[in-house]
């Protein structure tokens, strides 16, 4: 059981910078999710932590020990690959036992542990099969079993659910979190799926173009995104952005969007905002309510009914805008909805940094 510390970790392939000064600390036993769009460097970061890629800058520490240049086998990590990477020429039993056998674990101990893990994952009946005779879901379980059986200090998951059907994916996601809580080791999990990111993580690390954009508890990152990228990346449908400038609204401040439309800001947000400053107003689709006195007028163009929610696509002025409401009763196309904003976010239009 170890904590993981990254100090200014950098990785470049030739002239291409993939990771740029990544600093992070993951507590012992935490479930850490690295999330970002494809090409953001999250898989490379995971591979650097596992020792499969050599970092070109910075250091990596496990439990206070520098493992920056240690081989993967000397780091006491286990990894579940996106492809599962089961050894095709071995039975499930030998796949599970492989790591233990390499470490010269006594035969009885290996057998006992394999049995224990097989029971945990309900794959006892598959032990004598070869991977090619397994379904996708079964292969995924074997891949997890191969990681668990070694009792490593750190678990690594590289998009382990992306090859599963949606239904199975939800089921295994819950199971992964349950196993993590049961085993108590530090887990580092890479995904581009924000549902996985939000539901699994104790700590969320949002990456973009090789840089850490924000680290925090999922809800904190969701509710207080550090910049425009994080705000736009997390949440579905994505946050709406409207250009405007800061204006006075009696004692408080507001964002003026033109044509007399003003969205009032809550008191806590005022500090860094001088009237007249250009800003970008961010509004999550879920953070609006219908209110006949609300400042925003949404011209409805398309309504998507999801059963539990409706997504209303339309325009506010010239800008496109999406609002999400609970229930299944949507407005009609062409209708104009008046909306009030419950949680506005304000960003600097040039740097994208959140202004609070």
């Amino acid at each position: 059981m170890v904590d993981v510390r990254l100090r200014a970790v950098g990785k470049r392939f030739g002239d291409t910078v993939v990771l740029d000064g990544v600093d992070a600390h993951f507590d012992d036993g935490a479930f850490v999710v690295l999330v970002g769009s494809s090409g953001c460097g999250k898989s490379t970061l995971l591979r650097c932590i596992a020792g499969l890629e050599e970092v070109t800058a910075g250091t990596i520490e496990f439990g206070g020990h520098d493992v920056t240049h240690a081989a993967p086998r000397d780091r006491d990590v286990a990894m579940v690959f996106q492809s599962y990477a089961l050894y095709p020429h071995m039975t499930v039993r030998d796949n599970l036992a492989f790591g233990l056998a390499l470490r010269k674990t006594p035969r009885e101990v290996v057998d006992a542990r394999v049995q224990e893990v097989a029971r945990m994952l309900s794959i006892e009946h598959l032990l004598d099969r070869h991977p090619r005779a397994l379904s996708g879901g079964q292969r995924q379980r074997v891949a997890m079993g191969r990681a668990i059986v070694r009792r490593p200090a750190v678990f690594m998951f590289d998009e382990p659910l992306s090859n599963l059907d949606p239904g199975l994916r939800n089921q295994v996601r819950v199971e992964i979190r349950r196993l993590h809580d049961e085993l108590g080791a530090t887990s580092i999990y890479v995904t581009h799926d924000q549902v996985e990111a939000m539901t699994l993580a104790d700590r969320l690390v949002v990456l973009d173009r090789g840089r850490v954009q924000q680290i925090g508890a999922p809800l904190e990152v969701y509710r207080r995104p550090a910049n425009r990228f994080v705000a736009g990346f997390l949440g579905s449908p994505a946050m709406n952005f409207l250009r405007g400038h800061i204006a006075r609204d009696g004692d408080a401040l507001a964002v003026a969007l033109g044509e007399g439309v003003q969205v009032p800001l809550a008191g806590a947000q005022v500090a860094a905002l001088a009237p007249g400053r250009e800003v970008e107003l961010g509004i999550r689709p879920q953070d609006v309510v219908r209110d006949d006195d609300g400042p925003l007028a949404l011209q409805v163009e398309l309504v998507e009914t999801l059963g539990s929610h409706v997504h209303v696509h339309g325009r506010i002025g010239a800008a496109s805008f999406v609002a999400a409401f609970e229930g299944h009763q949507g407005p009609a196309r062409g209708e104009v909805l008046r909306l009030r904003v419950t949680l506005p976010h304000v960003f600097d239009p040039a740097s994208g940094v959140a202004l609070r």
Partner: protein
Amino acid sequence: MNPMRRRRAIESALVHVALVIGVAFALYPVAWVAALAFSGTPAPEPQVMPWPQQPTTAHFEEVVGATATIGDDSVWLFGRQLANSLVVALATATVGVLIAIPAAYALARFDFLGKRSGVGVLLATQMFPAVASAIPLYLVLEALGLLNTRTGLVLCYASTAVPFAIFQLRAAFEAIPVDLEEAAMVDGATRVGAFVRVVLPIARPAIAVTALFAFMSAYNEFILAATLLDDSRMFTLPVMLQHYVGEYDAKWEAFAAGALVVSLPVMALFYVAQRHLVAGLASGGVKG
């Protein structure tokens, strides 16, 4: 019979007719050799149906029973030549594959200086006909004192087998997902350990095919062997065969019998190796 089934039946019949013609075309010369081998002397006049005239096994006895007298000893010549052929072919396959495996793996997995030009040179060596190198090889072996030796022949054969083996094995290694090796390394293996425990077993069918190919080309090779060997005790079987068809005298029946005997080991080998020739062992480890 409904039209659909009738069409299928006709199609199937046509396919089979085509296959039978193809097989007959391929086997006709072999049947001729067999007919000749079992015919009595003098050789029958050529006829359309390959069938032995005055059937006999005398030519097989002549070829297999061939002896030579060296000093006071009588040597079973055919036995020695068969052993020469098998030893040379086996050594060629072993040496060729052992050299090709690490080279192919390096080409498949690593980037290094000179990789492209190295591959280019390997490819270029494949473009020269083997005969072109016969004289230089003769001179080299002469200088090394390896003329008329099995070792010399193996060196020559291996050097021609290696480039092809490298290309074949490189493709096989490239087809094995890197994930598998990485999984092994995370599981506790060194790179060499991952190679030995994971990559090699998965590549076994490809390695078997490569070795078989090297074995066969060495076993069947004639021109180099005829150039580099002039002691009948060192002959490989193809050179032995050629001696039945001399400048002044052609024992075609013995030649045909020899040809059949010589192809037996290769046929046996193919029969045994069939299992390995079936690919597909690698499927299933990685979601595909």
